[in-house]
């Protein structure tokens, strides 16, 4: 169970050295292949072991084992419906909010299993921020949007400073500094998304999860967010789901390719540095996906 089971995905006729065999030669350990490929050498912030996930009776994730390195951008790519967003939402327990879901396996954040009985999801989400696919600023002023998270978390410092710092970090300050009282919904889509990033930053999180943050934005706004991601990774760990492979190639240090089997359960197919994954994919399906032959 602990090893990555991708065999069901593979057509039986295709005899290729798979991920496991490729790694086996490099790192002799208990599960050499999995560790070599799926656990980057940098210190891990998240470590997933056999993570499986069900919506009702439908399995959406199957035995995902991998770790996410600290202060890096890790991209999750894969075709629609492969479970990459579900995987992301497992990392800050946002899936808890949906009825009838079940999680199995371990998700360790700084060594703690975030699904352990004594873990409070509110504490988890305070440290692990999230930016959603569609910009979702609160129907309140820009200032209140940026201040809300800090406020509910009992922030006692100077709120004006915190709001300014967060908006500056999100590269939005210069555009909005003169009308902080304006409602957040009046901004453009790209500005709204940067406001959502500022809002997440104001809580002073450790990690920022981004669920296709640019899919509703035009190319210029997308570029701004991508520059911002490269800027933010100096201070934060970023995990981004994207269906845009160019984006993954541009912004991420590591890339994981997720693919659903016939039953719809997502498997981790390949994981490595973005450079390696895009230039020398080891799995044929990764190669086909990144060259645009399916998905």
């Amino acid at each position, binding site marked *: 169970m602990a090893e990555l089971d991708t065999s069901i995905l593979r057509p039986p006729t295709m005899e290729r050295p798979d991920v496991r065999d490729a790694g086996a030669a490099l790192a002799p350990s208990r599960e050499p292949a999995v560790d070599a490929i799926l656990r980057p050498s940098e210190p891990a912030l998240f470590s997933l072991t056999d993570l499986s996930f069900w919506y009702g009776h439908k399995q959406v994730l199957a035995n995902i084992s991998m770790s996410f390195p600290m202060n890096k951008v890790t991209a999750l790519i894969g075709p629609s419906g492969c479970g990459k967003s579900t995987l992301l939402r497992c990392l800050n327990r946002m899936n808890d909010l949906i009825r009838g879901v079940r999680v199995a396996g371990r998700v360790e954040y700084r060594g703690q299993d975030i699904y352990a009985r004594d873990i409070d999801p*509110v504490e988890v989400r305070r440290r692990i*921020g999230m930016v*959603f696919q569609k910009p979702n600023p*609160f129907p309140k002023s820009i200032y209140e949007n940026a201040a809300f*998270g800090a406020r509910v978390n009992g922030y006692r410092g100077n709120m004006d400073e915190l709001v300014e710092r967060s908006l500056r970090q999100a590269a939005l300050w210069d555009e909005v500094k003169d009308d902080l009282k304006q409602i957040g919904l009046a901004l453009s889509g790209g500005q709204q998304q940067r406001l959502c990033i500022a809002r997440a930053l104001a809580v002073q999180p450790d990690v920022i999860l981004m669920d296709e943050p640019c899919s509703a934005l035009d190319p210029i706004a997308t570029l701004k967010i991508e520059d911002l991601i490269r800027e933010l990774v100096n201070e934060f760990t970023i995990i981004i789901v994207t269906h845009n492979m160019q984006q993954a190639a541009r912004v991420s240090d590591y890339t994981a390719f997720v693919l659903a089997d016939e039953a719809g359960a997502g498997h981790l197919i390949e994981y490595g540095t973005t450079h390696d994954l895009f230039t020398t994919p080891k799995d044929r399906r990764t190669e086909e996906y990144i060259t645009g032959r399916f998905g």
Partner: protein
Amino acid sequence: MAIADSQATVLRASGAVARRQAVSRAAGWVLLAASLIGVAILIFLAYDTVREGASRLSWRFVTNYPSRFADQAGLRSSILGSAWVMGLTVVVAFPVAIGTAIWIEEFAPKNALLTVIKLNLANLAGVPSIIYGILGLAIFARYFGLGPSIMTGALTLSLMIIPMTVIAAEEAIRQVPQSIRDGSLALGASHWQTVRHHVLPAALPGIMTGVILAVARAAGETAALIMVGAFTFIAFDNTSPFEDFTTVPVQIYNWTIRPQADFRHNAAAAIIVLMVAVLSLNLLAAVIRERFRRD
């Protein structure tokens, strides 16, 4: 040339398209007629009431106590009684109703018991008001010994409007987009903080609409109040919720059943007063609602 000619004829509605368009236009007229029937009846009723009652309208009609002489009788005690009962009803019913709606939509475990509760609420909203009157008489007037008092009337009307207010508030809370809840929870806000700062403000305009309808229904309620004993002659100003009382609709009923034609003019005049009062309340509520919506 031949192609251009045939295209020109095709673009003019003919055959099936012409028939469908004719049906569509006819539907517009039928729907207009349906709307006009309601409006016409309403205008006729309003005209008839004004014609009957306008001659009795005067400041003295509003400030006089009831009397056995039609030309000296007024609405003073019934207006005061209505104000007392409505005020208390709002104070009792809305916290209960809105609290129930929030619990059902946001906190309740989604199980069979909840389905039963919701079904019962829907049924209660359809129970005839006279039944609530009997209940109020048995429980509040007799069992709790409150007698035919303002408190009994207010508690009875509260019971009557709580189900419909709960249903309207539930509907309003359901309309709040999940993305707002997600945004708040992802910042580490607790469930209650999310409800308090985002769900309730966003649902408030919808809740207000339900509240307005419920108040209007309670303001015009007669049967339940007659049942609990509001059908009395009151020639003093109410100063406490434990006194006997009457209300404007009960006074209207009182005047309507008298044989003398003069009292019927009084009833018509009182209807005008009640309509103006309810319309003003609705207008006020609409203004408040619009203000909330803008903020």
